């Protein structure tokens, strides 16, 4: 046990002199490990849709004396994290092996195995699906495009540049509408007619997000106000279980015949040279793939089994009433080569996705001075400077609208950028302003709503990104009143910093079906994440 604890901390061992090594151990954090018998930690970098499997994994791990924790990130983020520094994690478990392959540039990931599969499909309210004639027949992506064009269907979908499910759906759209039935190429992406059709289809997206798990939560919060959502079959099953529990209409799953993808949920070990961890990983993986655990995973709506024969066919989970037919073949598209995928993602971000209308309400109160102010300005630079933004696939399109509302206890100003060419001066204004005064998040958020009151928001993916660092004056009720008056689905995505009150911010989140982002340890990452939802 002690021997293990030492070997694990190889950075300590590498000290060239053993005496120094002993001193280091005794004086540093390694000391506590020597004296405590606490369990060993094992961190998995994972997609958010694996959350329902966390208890199962923890239970398996406990037998080996390991405390497994999950760090949930989007696929694109995970790929970047693997590229930057995979030593922070012990294992990686993503929706598609593709992202591991792309991220693992230092070749540290091994023992990769698919634990389960799940196709990415459309879940449509059953009455709506019937109305559209989608029940009991083959549906193509063109049928869905037609329904969008005739304003009969809107759907929620994660961002194709942040999340695997959104990207898979988007690639399916390109593939199907091209009607070539071969992998997409660079040339295909230049096809103007194809671009126009996919752009039309994406006009049908009414809410987006950076994560598939959160999209489900949003759908359920919507309480019947959303028609449909693109997600993993497994997540759609979870949604339906919840809807049924609430006595509500479940979603009908539609599997377009020409634009499907299957997620393979590959789990791999990140080899940082710790033999004990590797042995534990093998044991855990073997357990996950054992017949009994595979059955349990099947209970959670994930497909398991071999040769297209699903092992767990529980009809309450894979419910035929919901349009699920396990005997039907799923013929996914040929996934394009990685450089084509990256080009398609850039195309999505800069030209095809529904334009964003983003209001940044930015706290310039006195407490922001120095560190807070510097970080805030850096964060805005990351988003507005297109060269930096493109590193995270967060760059804008020329149709996007960006509004910045700096505030303290008063509104300081309202700055608007209608085109990419305006971003530079917008950023200058943001950078030149100095922090001062008190805090009132409500005034600024109300101004954000006012900004969109007369905008045709069906043409935009809208959001108020509210960054604040302190307890706010002002009244929630005023905001709630304006929100109801404006009567639009405008989410507030607050970013918490410094002494901000999560109670106040959660009030806004709840009312507007937004999401709170924690920027206390890393404000720039929180801004990137929030922008990824819009």
């Amino acid at each position, binding site marked *: 046990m002690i021997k293990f604890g030492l070997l694990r901390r190889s950075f300590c061992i590498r000290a060239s002199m053993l005496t120094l090594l002993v001193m280091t151990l005794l004086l540093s954090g390694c000391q506590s490990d020597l004296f405590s018998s606490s369990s060993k930690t094992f961190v998995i970098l994972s997609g958010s849709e694996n959350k329902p499997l966390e208890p199962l994994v923890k239970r398996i791990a406990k037998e080996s004396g390991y405390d497994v924790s999950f760090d949930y990130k989007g696929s694109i983020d995970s790929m970047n994290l693997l590229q930057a520094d995979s030593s922070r994690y012990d294992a990686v478990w993503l929706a598609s092996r593709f992202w591991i392959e792309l991220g693992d540039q230092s070749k540290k990931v091994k023992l990769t195995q698919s634990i389960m599969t799940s196709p990415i499909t459309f879940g449509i309210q059953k009455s709506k699906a019937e109305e559209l004639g989608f029940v009991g027949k083959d549906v193509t992506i063109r049928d869905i495009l037609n329904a969008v064009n005739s304003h009969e269907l809107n759907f929620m979908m994660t961002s194709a540049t942040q999340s695997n499910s959104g990207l898979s759906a988007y690639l399916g759209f390109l593939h199907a509408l091209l009607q070539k039935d071969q992998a997409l190429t660079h040339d295909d992406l230049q096809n103007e007619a194809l671009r126009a059709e996919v752009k039309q289809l994406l006009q049908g997206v009414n809410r987006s997000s950076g994560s598939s798990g959160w999209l489900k939560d949003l759908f359920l919060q919507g309480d019947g106000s959303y028609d449909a959502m693109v997600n993993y079959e497994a997540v759609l099953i979870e949604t339906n279980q919840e809807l049924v529990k609430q006595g509500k209409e479940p979603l009908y799953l539609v599997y377009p015949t020409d634009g499907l993808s299957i997620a393979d949920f590959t789990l791999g070990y990140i080899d940082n040279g710790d033999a004990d961890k590797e042995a534990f990983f093998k044991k855990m993986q073997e357990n996950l793939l054992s017949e009994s655990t595979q059955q349990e995973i099947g209970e959670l709506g994930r497909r398991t089994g071999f040769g297209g024969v699903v092992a767990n066919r529980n009809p309450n989970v894979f419910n035929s009433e919901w349009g699920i037919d396990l005997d039907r073949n799923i013929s996914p598209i040929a996934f394009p080569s*990685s450089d084509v995928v990256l080009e398609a993602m850039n195309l999505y971000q800069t030209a095809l996705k529904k334009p964003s209308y983003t209001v940044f309400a930015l706290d310039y109160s006195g407490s922001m001075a120095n560190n807070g102010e510097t970080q805030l300005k850096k964060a805005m630079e990351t988003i507005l400077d297109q060269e930096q933004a493109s590193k995270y696939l967060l760059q804008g399109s020329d149709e996007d609208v960006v509004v910045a509302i700096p505030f303290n206890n008063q509104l300081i100003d309202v700055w608007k950028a209608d085109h990419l060419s305006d971003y530079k001066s917008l950023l200058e204004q943001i950078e030149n302003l100095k922090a001062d005064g008190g805090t009132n998040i409500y005034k600024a958020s109300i101004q954000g709503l006012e900004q969109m009151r007369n905008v045709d928001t069906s043409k935009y993916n809208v959001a108020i990104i509210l960054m604040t660092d302190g307890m706010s004056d002002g009244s929630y009720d005023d905001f709630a009143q304006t929100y109801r008056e404006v009567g639009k689905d405008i989410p507030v995505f607050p970013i918490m910093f410094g002494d901000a009150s999560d109670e106040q911010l959660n009030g806004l989140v709840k009312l507007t079906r937004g999401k709170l982002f924690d920027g206390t340890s890393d404000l720039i990452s929180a801004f990137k994440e929030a922008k990824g939802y819009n």
Partner: protein
Amino acid sequence: MKGKQWGTLIGIIILVFVVGIGYLFSRNSDLTSGGKGNITVVGNLGGEKIGLFSDEEIIKILKDRYHITVDWRKAGSIEMVKDYKQGPDFLFPSNQVALELFKNNHAEEIKGSEIIFNSPIVFYTWNRIADALIDQGIARQNNGVNTVDTESLLALVNEGKSWDDIGANKNDPNSKLYGKVTIISTDPSKSNSGNMFAGLYANLISGGVVNDSNIAAALPQIKAFFQNLGYLEPSSGDLFEQYLKTGMGAKPIIVGYENQMIEFAEDNPAVWEQVKDRMRVLYPVPTVWSSHPLIALSDNGKKLIEALKDKEIQELAWKKHGFRSGIVDIQNDVSALGIGNIPETIDSVIAMPTPAIMDQIIQAVQ
């Protein structure tokens, strides 16, 4: 601190020394390789051999009889020679071309090399598709062994025939296969099975082993063929796993090694019972041999070559992992296998193009 705690602390300090020294020594293989203690042999191997190198029986023989522990890392056969950096004791790709390519730049580093195993390239498909191909006269069944005319099968793909066209849906109207006939391989620029398939493909569209005189004409078609497949897995193990897990719609026909099915059946008898009537192996006529040369880069690597020639290891490699022996005086016995429909010998084999030609093919598909 009380006396007991001091005692513990001193004990810990001693332990730190002992462990630390042991650790430092174990990092330096030169200090241990001369002795009779275990040697750790570090190297890269293709995904298809992971099962063999994880086999407890084989691990034990290597350890007990030869004092060898293998510390391996998975890498594509082409990738491991192209991205080679000094350090490992061996490389274990699954074709001769990889060895030849390695020789081009690193000949002086090779301490020895020898073909340890062989396995033919095969197609894995599903009963419905195999039966449709038999009906079309493209595939045949003889004593349980399925063979397919490679050229005719590739022609279906090149002509853009759909699954409907070849009758793969006629008995299953409610569970249709959508789209065109496709054969999915691994990435020819990274993995051996894909690379060998590209060589086989190039041969067949060139009317024989493709050479300097006709490679230029073949390249555009080879390039288009692989471009149409899109993203391809970098390893044959991963592709075979996906074939099994995502099923017929996703992976209707894949390129693999013969050994993969034998190994899978051996490792997963219960699953094998469930899928054996659904999955089908098609032996291409002609096919290409995948030979597995072990390239030793150090004396320890050479020791591994000798160890792997052990009769018992060779037998286990065939029975449990499906690798036909690369050693001249060892015969493989089909009746020793737990599954049927495996031919005693592979008769129709075409030579791979030369490494220089293969290099051109890799460049084209990259």
